[in-house]
């Protein structure tokens, strides 16, 4: 048998493949649009008060002015500029949601690798627990836990992250189960590699694609969940200009026609989630090609 090409070549081939799939991604209009919208919210979250037309926290003008030339999005019940608050409103959710998603995907991937690789009793047992977790709406369990523990940013991250873990575990487990039947895993076993080595160095790189897709999808769901929890009053707390919280503070004024302090934050939530889903959709189609 001839000596097969040295590792350097394989690496450059891999880099080439990565460059190619990146080029495919940027040709997808959905991906570009999603990236632009998400990038805009990230920029606003970082730039914050430096570029808002008014002080989003301490500038109390006349309350509930309708949108007009002075206040493009109107003012809220305390007279704060809605546009300025929507601009900085991404800040908390764009910290909490990614952290929760990363926590859930990391823990879920570990669990999924173990379940998919060892199967048998471990898998059966954990699968039952995962099933029990999945039989409840995430929002409901999060609500119960946050009431019992008391709400804080850290607790929200932990609760949402842990509640995402079983969902991720199920996806990763399925991916691992297909991989472990392939020859390279058998070869590694025959070489006498340990289970830990095979999981970390052989299987993990090959299920990285689905994990990255899962991370984007979970990021979108994390924003969905955190926004809903904030709207329900157990997520991000006042005086944050968080979008879900703003909707919660102002929605009862919609009946009397004062729709702008509710509508614009709601629109911001929708745009942010749709952007992430466009990105996730593009990643998914590239990964499955």
């Amino acid at each position, binding site marked *: 048998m001839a000596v097969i090409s040295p590792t350097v070549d394989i690496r450059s081939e891999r880099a080439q493949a990565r460059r190619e799939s990146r080029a495919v991604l940027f040709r997808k209009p959905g991906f570009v649009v999603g990236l632009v919208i998400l990038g805009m919210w990230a920029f606003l979250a970082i730039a914050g008060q430096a570029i808002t037309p008014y002080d989003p926290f301490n500038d109390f003008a006349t309350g509930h002015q309708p949108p007009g030339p002075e206040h493009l999005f109107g003012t809220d019940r305390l007279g704060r500029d809605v546009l300025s608050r929507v601009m900085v409103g991404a800040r908390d959710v764009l910290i909490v949601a990614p952290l929760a998603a990363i926590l859930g995907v990391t823990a879920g991937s570990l669990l999924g690798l173990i379940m998919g690789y060892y199967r048998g009793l471990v898998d059966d047992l954990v699968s*039952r627990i995962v*099933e029990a977790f999945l039989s409840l709406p995430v929002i409901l369990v999060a609500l*119960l836990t946050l009431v*019992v523990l008391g709400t804080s940013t850290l607790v929200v991250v932990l609760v949402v992250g842990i509640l995402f873990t079983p969902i991720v575990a199920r996806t990763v487990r399925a991916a691992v189960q297909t991989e472990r039947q392939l020859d390279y895993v058998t070869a590694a076993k025959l070489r006498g590699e340990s289970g830990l080595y095979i999981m970390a160095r052989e299987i993990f790189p090959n299920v990285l694609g689905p994990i990255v897709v899962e991370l984007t999808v979970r990021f979108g769901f994390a924003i969905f969940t955190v926004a809903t929890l904030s709207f329900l009053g157990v997520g991000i707390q006042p005086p944050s200009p968080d979008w879900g919280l703003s909707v919660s503070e102002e929605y009862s004024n919609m*009946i009397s026609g004062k*729709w702008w302090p509710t509508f614009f934050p*709601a629109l911001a939530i929708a745009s942010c989630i749709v952007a992430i889903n466009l990105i996730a959709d593009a990643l998914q189609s590239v990964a499955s090609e």
Partner: protein
Amino acid sequence: MTRWLLRRLVLSLITLWLLATLVFIITNVLPNDIGRTILGPFAPQESVDALNERLGTNDPLLEQYLRSMRSLVTFDFGNSFQSGQPVLPTILAAIGRSGVLAAFALALTIPIAIIAGLYAGRHRGQPSDRAIVLFGLTFSSIPEFVIGTFLVVVVGVQLGLLPVLATPPPRAGILDTARFLLMPALAMAIVYFGYIARMTRAGTIEVLESDYIRTATMKGLTTTQTIRRHVLRNALVPTVAVIGVQIGYLFGGIIGVEKIFNYNGMGQLMLFAAQRKDIPVLTAGVIVIGIVYMLATLAADLIIAWMNPRARLETH
């Protein structure tokens, strides 16, 4: 069939037990002081201790666990901290009202989503398919309360077409009640459309690629005949499964919808209990919703077994 059903029932009961254990861990094992949570940060320590004693949170953990497991069999979930009344009747009444709203939402979304999914599956890759998939994907990822807000602003406030609140006046007729419930139901219907349409589409594509459809086409059946006789029954299997799952999950999203539209159902009850730290109401609510999920997925599995005999023989 009997063995399959028995196995399925036992699995459901095991899941329910695990779920109740999970809820027990959240409320009793995680580090927290229930008396302090209820009485607030300014209550004197003696009151907190006395309350904890009366609630039995100082008892040995095993004793508390057995007590909560017993409630699963006797359906006695204790009394509300707030009203002192037994929890269960309040929850059943609220879940009934939410059930009406949820059923309305499902009735709106299921037929349309199935038709859209079948259509998209048959026209795979065409612009109409892309449009249906994109619409479903987009709206199933937006929280129900956000969709509800858009509906209130556009349909309720700007156009003035529908009432903004979901509570119909007393003694309203069925049509009038439906008019009041239309917007909240629509908010949920829009979110669930995507899940159901996507599953129907996937099921349709799989069936259309199968050999028996090729046979049906080659023996000269018209498209309508093929769809009615061969596609529907098989393509809708994943659809039924996803509807079963969604019926349980609906009770997560319904909380936001009930808050926006001020509808007096399960969601409002849970929120009210959350604000007042009424933990018996919350735990019992979570468990009852878990039971609803079990029953819904069980019903879905039974329907699937009836639609597709192969499912009955499969051992997982």
